[in-house]
């Protein structure tokens, strides 16, 4: 049990003394996972909207696919992206393997189905008559859709946060496509795994705690941004 206490002290020490490696790892973690989440949101939210509202053929099957995709094992996505990016693979000439860009690609692929599925669910929950009413009130289809998105904005943000939570905490894909290279592709999760295999348990716990803190900070930031708007607006 000492390990947990030592981990807490180590985490505070690393954060408070401004340990350079720790800050670089933390910054990279945020950069990779936030970029992946933003990309997943930009791609996933429109697809989810289309699936919820559009008359798409095979809509139920596609929704089931997106729902299944929420449970996509990161290690499988990682392997798939790795093989694509291998020197001998179809995208090998891009020289992306073992770079943060490769990690963003893999994590965006992990987060996208989550955003699609949760967006679709969120929009389906809005009163089905809402669109009809808006149209009835004379709104154009585009304006009606805009109003619907405003109505569903909280669940939409939740979809983004769920995507972020999934990628910032995953280790399989980050390890495989990033390679856990010191100073280049080492993020908090892969650093924690390495520290564990080196027997540095307190350090591993410390990385875990820092991960929790930044995930909390991001979610808190978004929530406060919403709340302040609610008060002033």
């Amino acid at each position, binding site marked *: 049990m000492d390990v947990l206490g030592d981990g807490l002290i180590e985490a505070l020490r690393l954060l408070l003394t401004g340990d350079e490696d720790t800050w670089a790892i933390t*910054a990279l973690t945020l950069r990779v996972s936030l970029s992946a989440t933003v990309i997943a949101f930009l791609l996933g939210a429109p697809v989810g909207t289309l699936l919820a509202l559009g008359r798409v053929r095979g809509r139920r099957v596609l929704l089931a696919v997106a729902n299944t995709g929420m449970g996509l094992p990161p290690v499988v996505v990682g392997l798939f992206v790795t093989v694509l990016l291998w020197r001998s693979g179809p995208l090998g000439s891009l020289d992306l393997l*073992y770079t943060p860009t490769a990690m963003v690609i893999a994590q965006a692929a992990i987060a996208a189905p989550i955003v699609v599925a949760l967006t679709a669910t969120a929009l389906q929950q809005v009163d089905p008559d809402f669109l009809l009413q808006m149209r009835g009130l004379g709104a154009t289809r585009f304006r009606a859709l805009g109003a619907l998105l405003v109505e569903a904005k909280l669940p939409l943000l939740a979809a983004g946060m769920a995507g972020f939570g999934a990628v910032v905490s995953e280790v399989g894909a980050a390890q495989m496509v990033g390679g856990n290279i010191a*100073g280049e592709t080492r993020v908090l999760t892969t650093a924690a795994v390495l520290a564990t295999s080196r027997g540095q348990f307190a350090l591993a716990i410390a990385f875990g705690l820092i991960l929790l803190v930044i995930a909390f900070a991001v979610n808190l930031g978004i929530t406060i*941004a919403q709340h302040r708007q609610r008060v002033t607006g």
Partner: protein
Amino acid sequence: MRRVRRAAVFLTVLLSLTACAGTEQAAGPSTEKSLILATTTSTQDSGLLDELLPAFTEDAGWQVKPLAVGSGQAIELGRRGEADVLLVHSPKAEEDFVAEGTTGPRRLVMHNDFVLVGPPEDPAGIRGVPAEEAMRKIATSGAGFVSRGDESGTHAREKQLWEQNEIVPSGQWYRSTGQGMGATLRVASETSAYTLTDRATYLSQKANLGLEVVNEGDKALLNVYHVIEMTKRAGDRVQPDGAKAFADWMTGERAQTMIREFGAEEFGQPLFLPDAGKDESTLGD
């Protein structure tokens, strides 16, 4: 919509902040030549690579992307041309691999040894016997044994030792973790079982383990590391010049001195012994 916009602004600010921090750190490597080294977990988990690689970059101007995987996977990455140079410790597999004809030179770098570790009370009574007999005693006594089971160099050596005894390890007493050395040592420690480990990883993690060295010193337990250069025959994008620079440097004076001194102070004995230019058959004499 304004609420969403606030959140978006927050995210954008956060992203650009971290992006600045990121580019600062990535600017160095991307402008230089970079090669891929496939190596074993023992060189990373013991901390040796952290010591050697910055010195190599400083001397040779090549950045190194080290992939710490089992020797089996490292050789596979070399075979596919996904790595430029290998630092591995699975001699039999290496010789077969070199015979395929896609590699460049294979050179001796260093060695340490494997040791059998187990509970201090040594239930199978393997202290002081030859390694082969020790393995037999473990199997027949039913005392637990934990295997890496991951096609690493250590796993390959373990299988070789069973084969020499014509033992097919299976049953309740034999567990395969499929994980690295550190994790496997901990499983052995928690279950009071024996395992085969390289000395470097054991020494660097000894403090966390309830395991002692119970059998050591047999020549069959030598753990020899070679550096293998890859060539264009393995893949178009292999960088033989980088491979040669790395292999030359690893067998050169500076690296060999660093290897000799690595860990000596902390553990009271060196973790690896440098062997560049030696005849492999004389090791352990």
